[in-house]
């Protein structure tokens, strides 16, 4: 009996990776505890705060739809981070690429005229993706050709994008209404069609988002090219020796990530605002980072995470007005999440220690 067991143990060498499974749970738990503590320190009513957050996000069909609408651009940002992180590149230039994507599709929506909707919308979306991709081209080229550190360049590109958008919106493409810094509204043929309109407007953005998730999952898990891309991220040296063109994959992933970020901005312009505002993005690009990291690059995990962040963003507004907890708490939650994700190594280590101690006790 004992012999059989040991043999079985030897065959099932691959143990359940508790650390990998449990660490996102732990991270979310610690974040929640910290947030609760913070609300408690400001003499806020904890239960009240959470109640109003959930009511604000799920309370009615209309609220639920606005949560979904918020989740869509965040999910694209998450996909963008996920694709690049699968090749081992940390793309924090999403914000700039997203803003440029929005610029691209609003330009196409404004100045391409006389087309029916079924042609105009794809043109706008493709233009947005192209703009995002082109904006990712400069860092990608620099990284591949010269090995320049991407991080600082991406930060600078983000700042440039924000400044340029302000310039465009106030200067060359300014709308007729000078009171708000925005372009003119895009043409009706470029507006995304609605799925539901009665309690609140839900665009087809959510279908695009789910479709992109399916395509990405299929690409990453079921194709050779996707496998090679993942190999670049897991072990770039091994990938190089196996004849995979690592740099090419990394550049490609950066460009794809830029295109996805551009798609996020484009959906936001075509579906929600119908014009390009200055500072329209409340940091969607940075929302994508913790989501993609927690989901460890799994597109469906990104969808779930994006939905949760949508809940946070919509619910916190209700929480602010009803329970008096300022909506800056969202920034705190994000910050704690990202910081804990950075410390993931030690969390995994601690979980591993716990699990192994238990196993040792069982054996003894």
């Amino acid at each position, binding site marked *: 009996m004992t012999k059989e067991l040991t043999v079985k143990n030897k065959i099932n060498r691959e143990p359940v990776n508790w650390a990998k499974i449990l660490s996102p749970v732990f991270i979310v738990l610690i974040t929640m505890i910290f947030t609760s503590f913070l609300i408690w320190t400001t003499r806020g009513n904890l239960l009240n705060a959470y109640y109003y957050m959930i009511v604000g996000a799920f309370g009615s069909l209309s609220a639920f739809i606005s949560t979904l609408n918020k989740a869509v651009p965040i999910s694209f940002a998450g996909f963008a981070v996920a694709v690049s992180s699968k090749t081992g590149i940390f793309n924090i230039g999403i914000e700039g690429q997203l803003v440029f994507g929005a610029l691209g599709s609003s330009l196409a929506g404004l100045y391409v005229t006389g087309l029916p909707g079924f042609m105009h919308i794809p043109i706008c979306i493709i233009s947005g993706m192209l703009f995002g991709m082109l904006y990712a081209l400069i860092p990608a080229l620099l990284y591949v050709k010269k090995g320049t550190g991407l991080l600082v360049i991406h930060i600078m590109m983000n700042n440039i994008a924000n400044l340029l958008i302000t310039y465009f919106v106030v200067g060359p493409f300014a709308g007729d209404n000078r009171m708000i810094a925005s372009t003119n509204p895009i043409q009706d043929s470029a507006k995304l069609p609605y799925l539901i309109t009665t309690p609140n407007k839900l665009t087809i953005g959510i279908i695009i988002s789910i479709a992109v998730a399916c395509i990405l999952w299929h690409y990453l898990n079921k194709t050779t090219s996707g496998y090679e891309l993942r190999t670049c991220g897991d072990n770039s040296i091994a990938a190089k020796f196996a004849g995979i063109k690592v740099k090419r994959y990394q550049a490609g992933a950066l460009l794809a990530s830029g295109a996805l970020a551009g798609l996020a901005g484009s959906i936001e312009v075509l579906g929600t605002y119908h014009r390009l505002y200055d500072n329209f993005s409340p940091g969607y690009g940075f929302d994508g980072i913790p989501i993609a990291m927690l989901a460890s690059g799994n597109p469906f995990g990104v969808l779930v995470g994006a939905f949760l962040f949508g809940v946070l963003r919509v619910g916190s507004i209700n929480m602010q007005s009803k329970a008096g907890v300022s909506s800056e708490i969202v*920034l705190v939650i994000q*910050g704690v999440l990202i910081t804990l*994700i950075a410390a993931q190594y030690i969390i995994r280590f601690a979980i591993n220690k716990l699990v192994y101690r238990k196993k040792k006790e069982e054996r003894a």
Partner: protein
Amino acid sequence: MSHTIIIAIIISILRLSVPVVITGLGNMFSVRAGIMNLGAEGMMITGAFCAVLGSYFTGNPWIGVICGVMGGMVIGLFHSLICVEFGGMQNISGLGLNMLAAGLTSFFCRSIYGTGFSPTVASIQKTGFLAKIPLIGNVLAQFSPIFYVLILLFLLCCFIVDKTVVGLRMNSVGFNPQMVETAGIDVWKLKHISVLVCGSLAGLAGAYLSIGQLNIFMEGMTMGKGMLAVIAVQMGRQQPQRILIIALIFGLCDALQLQLQINNVGIAPELIQTIPYIAGITALAMDSSAGIAPRMMQPYLKNKYKF
């Protein structure tokens, strides 16, 4: 007439570049020791908020400055715990701390003062006793005392980095921690110290922003100055003198942009503001040593934390 304008512009350049220089000097230590610190922005804003808190509750701006330094140090402590002690991911930790600090400061600001900005507090915007110096006294008195502290700090940093054992060890830790450990030096202690120094300097810069330049705290008042400092360190290749020059160039662009906004000359101020970034990207693109002998920016783990 033009004489006074030039003096005014020079004064505003110096004033605007102070926080970038201080944070840049701090960041230099941490990058030299192999810890990328994107959290400079968060350390700065925490410093700014803590400085205002200290000044608000005690009425003494110098206690505020000390509080600011401590505040920056606390964020630095988190960063060094995550990145040095526990082998976490430096860049992500820095970004997270930025968000956390921005969120926490505005959360507490709103819960203490009720709005997104604090009431006016006691500040140190002028150095009064220098006004007695003939000829240039009036100009010198217009700077905050922190400006003069910065001059001392700069000289000190130049000395520490190149002329002392600690500075050289810090540099070698950044390049090859294994070698340094073999030589019997405590790698982690050096790294912790450098990140803490970085945090305290960034906190000082924040204190300058809130009670050295103004006398209030506003949400998001650092406005990307911390990131500018990070960029300046990258562009200046961790040399204090170069960091100073680059920060002054950033200050020049900032001052020009402000002047343009006031005088309405017809050039968009946003375009002037992009100049430092475009220059930075060009400089990094032309950097011939980008791929050669990089610093060890990976975590150097303690043995007891290895799987």
